[in-house]
């Protein structure tokens, strides 16, 4: 036989305690790569782009030429690609795994959305181009608006708000305008204690005094307390439905009737629309205005914090006050109604909220998503979202306290508390432990009405396998936290960074880079 030798071992020796990983010279650990700042690796003499030579002309900059060194480093294309690729790998993302953030609806972001948004016929359009040249774009906005109106059972929709909180502002400004139009300016807005912080912040911004509405022991708005407080000074009530505890507000219609009878309006925070899309229409519940987060229910990407898009559906009573501009059908085509054409159509609009027309890039994505699902698919979205959340709730309510678990099913998100954890162990420890288990933590310490709240929203785009793995991880962490496993206190161990000092960041804020020589000189 020919004796051909392998030359090297092909099965590893078992790792023992003594094989603790040594330090490396670079600080890298194989695929876990450290990455410096562009200010540390780039140079003001380097550029990764090339241009044709500028025409030689006499300057018309009026003696305002910039002569200082700006301090913006450049990198070559390959260094740029490496820098951002390395940074990207230090992020958790939906593309990596289940992202259980309650009230954020971290569903899969379909790539068809991205392809459509980038079609030059959408991406390369100027907002002020003559309307005859952008009829297709106006048609998209109109088609999406029609879907949103039909899905919510409302009268019309304001498309221009740029995010959910911006949409809340839109809704409240419409309410304020409506009250002023009938000569009945009021000064108070009622907000449940469990509401997201944007609700009272927005109300205060519009000049209203904010008062809390308490919750009942079963996690809903206290209807009697609310009715008792309604009066001629209350302009509106802001309700989230399903609410931030993941529960459907059963009394919603009764609440709306009472609010209307008192001459006020109902604003609905639509962040949790994913639980009821295609199954319940807010218009049937007496809602006057509701913002929809396209980056939640309708899958536009979160992008590391934004951009969002927050169209606001409006009742017939509020429709005349909707902001400018908006798109309407005119003859065979579409028209963008801006300030100067508003008089004929929309003389009572409260005005413009933003330059140009809204988040077109999100409209194309959201419409693509909606057309992909259709009415049947969207109803299935709500079904599966609610099913998935209840599966998680019931798979874990023997090991984690579910404060409202006994009172019935949850909607699209499951809420747990820190009751039963060992002395000194908190929701934070479980959350940081989840990181090591390969998941982004769930929403922590929100809503404020539950101690040590853990709000889990899986969404409908998670398979049963993914859910089971998550349940396994959370069960293990709950058991460890109840047993007082000290190792949890040091988690996460395996992330690119250990726990970070937020106290230092707040006491001595360093918000921009300073070159070390300059920093020393300053001290």
């Amino acid at each position, binding site marked *: 036989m020919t004796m051909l030798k392998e030359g090297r071992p092909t099965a590893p020796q078992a790792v023992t305690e003594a094989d603790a990983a040594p330090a490396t010279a670079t600080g890298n650990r194989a695929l876990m790569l450290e990455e410096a700042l562009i*200010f540390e690796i780039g140079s*003001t003499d380097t550029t990764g*782009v090339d241009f*044709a030579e500028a*025409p030689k002309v006499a300057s018309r900059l*009026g003696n*305002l030429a910039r002569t*200082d060194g700006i301090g*913006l*480093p*450049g*990198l070559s294309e390959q260094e740029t690609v490496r820098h*951002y690729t390395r940074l*990207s790998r230090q*992020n958790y*993302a939906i593309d990596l795994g289940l992202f259980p953030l309650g009230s954020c609806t971290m569903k899969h*972001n379909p790539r*068809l959305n*991205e392809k459509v948004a*980038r079609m030059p*016929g959408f991406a390369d359009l100027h907002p*002020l*181009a003559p309307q*005859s*040249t952008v009829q297709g774009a106006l*048609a998209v906005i109109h088609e999406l608006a029609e879907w949103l109106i039909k*899905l919510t059972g409302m009268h019309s929709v304001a498309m221009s708000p*740029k995010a959910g*909180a*911006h949409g809340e*502002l839109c809704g409240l400004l419409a309410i304020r305008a409506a009250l002023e139009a009938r000569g009945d300016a009021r000064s108070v807005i009622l907000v449940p204690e469990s509401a997201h*912080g*944007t609700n009272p912040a927005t109300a205060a911004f519009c000049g209203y005094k904010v008062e809390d509405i308490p919750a009942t022991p079963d996690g809903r708005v206290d209807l009697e307390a609310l009715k008792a407080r309604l009066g001629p000074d209350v302009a509106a009530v802001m309700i989230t439905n399903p609410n931030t505890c993941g529960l*459907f507000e059963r009394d919603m*219609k009764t609440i709306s009737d009472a609010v209307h009878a008192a001459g006020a309006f109902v604003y609905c925070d639509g962040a949790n629309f994913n639980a009821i899309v*295609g199954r*319940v*229409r807010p218009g049937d519940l007496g809602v006057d205005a509701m913002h929809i987060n396209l980056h939640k229910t309708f899958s536009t990407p*979160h992008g*590391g914090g*934004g*951009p969002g898009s927050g169209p606001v559906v409006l009742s017939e009573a509020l429709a005349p006050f909707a902001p400018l501009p908006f798109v309407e059908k005119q003859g065979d085509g579409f028209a963008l109604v801006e300030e100067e054409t508003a008089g004929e159509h929309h003389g009572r609009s409260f*005005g413009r909220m*933003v*330059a*140009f027309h809204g988040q077109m*890039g999100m409209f194309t994505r959201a419409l693509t998503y909606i*057309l*992909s*699902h259709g009415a049947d*698919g969207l*109803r299935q979205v709500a079904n599966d979202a609610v*099913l998935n959340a209840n599966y998680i709730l019931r798979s874990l309510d023997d090991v984690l306290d579910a404060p409202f678990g006994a009172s*019935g099913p949850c909607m699209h998100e499951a809420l747990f508390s820190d009751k039963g954890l060992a002395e000194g162990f908190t929701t934070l420890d479980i959350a*940081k432990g989840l990181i090591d288990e390969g998941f982004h933590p769930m929403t922590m310490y929100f809503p404020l009405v539950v101690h040590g709240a853990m709000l889990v929203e899986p969404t409908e*785009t998670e398979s049963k396998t993914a859910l089971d793995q998550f349940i396994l991880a959370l069960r293990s962490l709950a058991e460890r936290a109840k047993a007082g496993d000290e190792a949890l206190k*040091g988690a996460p161990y395996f992330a690119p960074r*250990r726990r*970070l000092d937020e106290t230092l960041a707040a006491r001595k804020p360093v*918000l921009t880079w300073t070159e070390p020589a300059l920093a020393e000189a300053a001290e």
Partner: protein
Amino acid sequence: MRYLPLTDTDRQEMLSVIGAASVDDLFVDVPAQARLSGQIAGLPDHASELAVERHMAALARKNLSAGEAPFFLGAGAYRHHVPASVDHLIQRGEFLTAYTPYQPEIAQGTLQVLFEFQTQVARLLGCDVANASMYDGSTACWEAIGMARRITKRGKAILSSGLHPHYVSVANTMAKFTGDALVHEAPKLDAATDIEALIAGIDKDTSCVVVQYPDILGRIADLTPLAEAAHAAGALLIAVVTEPVALGACRAPGHMGADIVVGEGQSIGVGLQFGGPYLGLFACKQKYVRQMPGRLCGETVDAAGKRGFVLTLSTREQHIRREKATSNICTNSGLCALAFSIHMTLLGEKGLRELAMLNHGLAVQAADRLRQVPGVTLLNDSFFNEFTLLLSKDAREIVRTLADKGVLGGVSLGRLFPDAPEIGHGLVVAVTETVTPEDIETFAKALEEELA
């Protein structure tokens, strides 16, 4: 439906774990009269990827995109060439599908980018500190006016006539509800900006003066005297930059005394997108940092002593301060800030200067060619890449007719200021590096035909 992974077997297994007979049982809290028994009528069923793509492509084809015609539109949104790698990098799933970096240990990618972005923006605008972005320039401008009110405790804001009319409109809408008094009028067709008039109008009730640089007609002015006058009266100077590429060639507003500088970052990395999503830039002096709205990313260390980044000074924000927050803003424009930062890194200041000089050079050539057309005068003495032409006819009609002929020839003042017919013969023309000499010639000839 291709995005719903549960099988019917899965659903049955899960229902038995839950102890429910059907999914309908899970909706028991919805009152009967609000429960829809089936899918909503009058809406189509699901569609395949191919069908949806076809539908959307047909709508896209109904638009005349900027790349298909000689293109000269600006007025707050600019067409610049974005290098190919920018779009590839922002589509990495770890950027595209990541969330707000509230769990910093697994979001150092996003956080380091924000720290780099904040530094790039602060340096570009000539300020001490910048935030992690707002929705767009117009809302950033309005937030700056609110910040000036909080700092000076005064309620009267003076808005330059050279400020973008949409930004004025947004400020007016908000002022109705915050009680600020805004002073503004439509621009006059002078070569000089309205700086003198602004200085004359400052008094002890003024919270801020808001000026655009370059302004809506493309004019550039030294802001230093205005800053001095504002400060002497205890007011703040807010500068608005709608074309940040200009700062590759022109002095930064922060270096001329502006207290807050806001802007629209869309020019760098983001693209036209028919108006959104865009990118609000917000920067200010160090002493005002606690009054800033929006997210802020700061440097710190982790438990092992390694440098890292976290969101900080959160007590300004809505999720903590609720009704006492500096703003109700929650979302920023994260992915657009990433695109801006990547493009800016590829440019570096060397590339930014080259880009700026290329824009300016082409704009000067275009202005000189277009003013030769009979019936056309050039308004500006100074400009960067955008200038105003005065035509012998109403500009709005000219723009529409040119569009029918496949030329996207600028934005008319009639569209921007419909209530000021006396300036309706003005046409704002932007010229970026995407414009060719052939485009300029085509535009000039088409204009000549229309004005004949």
